[in-house]
């Protein structure tokens, strides 16, 4: 099984340690991982702005880059969802579309659904709050959303529960959006920041020392607010927890 590591553009540029943690984690599991150097971005910024014409060439490039791999694994729910759910409108004509759009997986779901991981060699003796990123939650269905009334499950908490010493705190609003939303963070700056502040307050009232999530974009927005306000909350990507690379 050959895995193509897909690192979202902003993670590549701004959070290389998250990408390294993802790589480390997959290598710890003795998986054959390759990072294709031709990769750029999934095209989500244009897609979410409604510029599907501009997504098209980027999507074509993505499919070409990743089609040789059995699985494409990505430490982001949002970017994974872009490939899986939104390429059909712009790139279904491409050779390899069917393969790439079905085999691109978010890191946690890959570990749970494909690897069927049973234990994780990491420990984190802290109170941790999980921020459910919306696209992972409601587009990839990594967990049951609070609106739905079917049987509860969560692939992400399933993994976190395997981490030694971790204490997951109960949030008041367990899956409210953080307000990032891509260009929304700029276009609707006021609401975006208010949503973020409320999300942080919920983690603080729940006694979290660390906030984690599957999407660095939500966490970038939240951490930006936390840093500015000096809130006592550390933000880490879930790959860092699972790989045990937190310093």
């Amino acid at each position, binding site marked *: 099984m050959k895995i193509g590591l897909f*690192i979202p*553009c902003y*993670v*590549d*540029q*701004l*959070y*290389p*340690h998250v*990408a*390294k943690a993802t*790589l480390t984690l997959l*290598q710890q599991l003795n998986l054959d991982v*390759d*990072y294709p*150097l*031709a*990769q*750029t971005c999934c095209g989500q*910024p*244009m*897609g*979410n*702005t*409604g*510029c599907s*014409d*501009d*997504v098209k060439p*980027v999507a074509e*490039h993505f499919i070409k880059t990743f089609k040789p791999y059995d699985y494409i694994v990505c430490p982001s729910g949002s970017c994974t969802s872009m490939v899986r759910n939104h390429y059909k409108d712009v790139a279904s004509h491409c050779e390899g579309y069917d393969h790439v759009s079905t085999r691109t997986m978010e890191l946690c779901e890959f570990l749970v659904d494909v690897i069927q991981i049973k234990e994780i060699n990491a420990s984190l003796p802290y109170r941790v709050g999980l921020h459910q990123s*919306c*696209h992972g939650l*409601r587009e990839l269905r990594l967990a049951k*959303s609070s*609106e*739905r*009334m079917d049987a509860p499950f969560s692939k992400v908490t399933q993994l976190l529960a395997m981490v030694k010493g971790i204490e997951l705190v109960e949030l008041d609003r367990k*899956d*409210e959006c953080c*307000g990032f*939303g891509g*260009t*929304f*963070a*700029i*276009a*609707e*700056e*006021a*609401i975006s*920041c*208010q*949503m973020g502040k*409320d999300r942080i307050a919920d983690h603080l009232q729940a006694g979290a020392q660390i906030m984690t999530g599957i999407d660095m974009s939500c966490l970038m927005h939240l*951490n*930006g*607010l936390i*840093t*500015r306000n000096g809130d006592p909350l550390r933000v880490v990507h879930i790959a860092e927890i699972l790989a045990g690379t937190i310093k």
Partner: protein
Amino acid sequence: MTQMHTHHPKKAAAFVSDQARTTWHNKALWFVRQKRDKAAASLPEWEQLRDTAAQIKAHSLSNLDEYLEEFERNAQAKGITIHWAATGDEHNQIVYDILKTHQVREVVKSKSMLTEECHLNPFLEKRGITVIDTDLGERIVQLRNEPPSHIVLPAIHVKKEEIGELFHEHMGTKKGASDPKYLTESARLDLRKKFLDAEAGITGVNFAVAETGSVVVCTNEGNADLGTVLPPIHIACMGLEKIIPKQENLGVFLRLLARSATGQPITTYSSHFNGPQKGSEMHVVIVDNGRSELLSRKKFWRSLSCIRCGACMNTCPIYRRSGGHSYGYVIPGPIGSVLAPNKDLAAHKSLPFASTLCGSCTDVCPVKIDLHHQLLAWREEVVKAGKLNPGKRLAMKLTSWVLQSPQRYKLAGKCARLAMKLPRVFLYNPLNIWGRQRDLPPAPPESFQEWYTKNRDKNS
């Protein structure tokens, strides 16, 4: 009051600048969402109900002409007069003509989003007819001379102290009194007189049943019933999408409607109007106003399934923090942002962007309208129509150009990281909207890709 277009970010920023009020508004609506969750969880078949409701609506809409004709036939057989209005204006004219024929001067109206959409009140008032909104929330916003800010909770944005002040001015309640019980009682006494004096009653329609020709109206206050049983004329106004095929379908919709809306298992009154009372008239006005055209829009026609429960507003994190008026359309929130651009894309182009696409609306919707996907699809329509801000459009083209080439991407990334190393005073300039309230992440010395290239051999 009837001017309907807006730039959402501006109004939203104004709303959110009052932090205490925003938090209060957010909490009030979240409370309703929690009640909805509890009510939905009480039925093990909730998700099956949603599936069934979505399918009944899809079936009705895909056979709408036949059901409209069936409804008309059966309603006429029961003595109901059916009118057809292609536009809001035609609807208003029809209602006015009925009232004029009977020399009506004062009419009581229960909640109807359709009459809000058509701007019926100002139309009638301009022609000398007084309209009294009788739903307490609607009465409050009517006295405040503003549109409802929510389709189920029209006055959710108003504080009880403000209502106390308003009622003091209009109904002579005690100055400074703001007890909800006292205010509600005062409105009851005031409106009871108006019900008894009314010469005609106007209602909306929740469901129109094709097989019986009946219309069903749901209220908690009893105002639709008082407003139709006392005056000799009942005019029920409905959008043509309100048709359902069979009476048994009501079982599905009435189970979902109130639970989704307020968390009640059913509204207090679920009234089945089957025809005029003895000596009275009953009219039903069927309104198109852009709906039939919407049926042809592949990505958007399912928005006509909406049963107006308001659950998407209660759950929407943007609605809760920006208030209904920030949308500048008669129906706010996610469903409003999907419906408004169909009416006037240019006027409402900011609404599809007033969302993080979090998808909570889609999961809460009792008829499973794919709201957040429709919001995204409307963004594409905005771009196709050339209505996206030119700067943004150019930025997207440029981004796309950069991302099509690994070399350009690498270079752009490097430049961006360099720029982020600027001293704070330059970095956090007025053009940096991100940085108004948020810090940027510290720029790392090298990208993952640069690190990986250096360490590739070790890694493979």
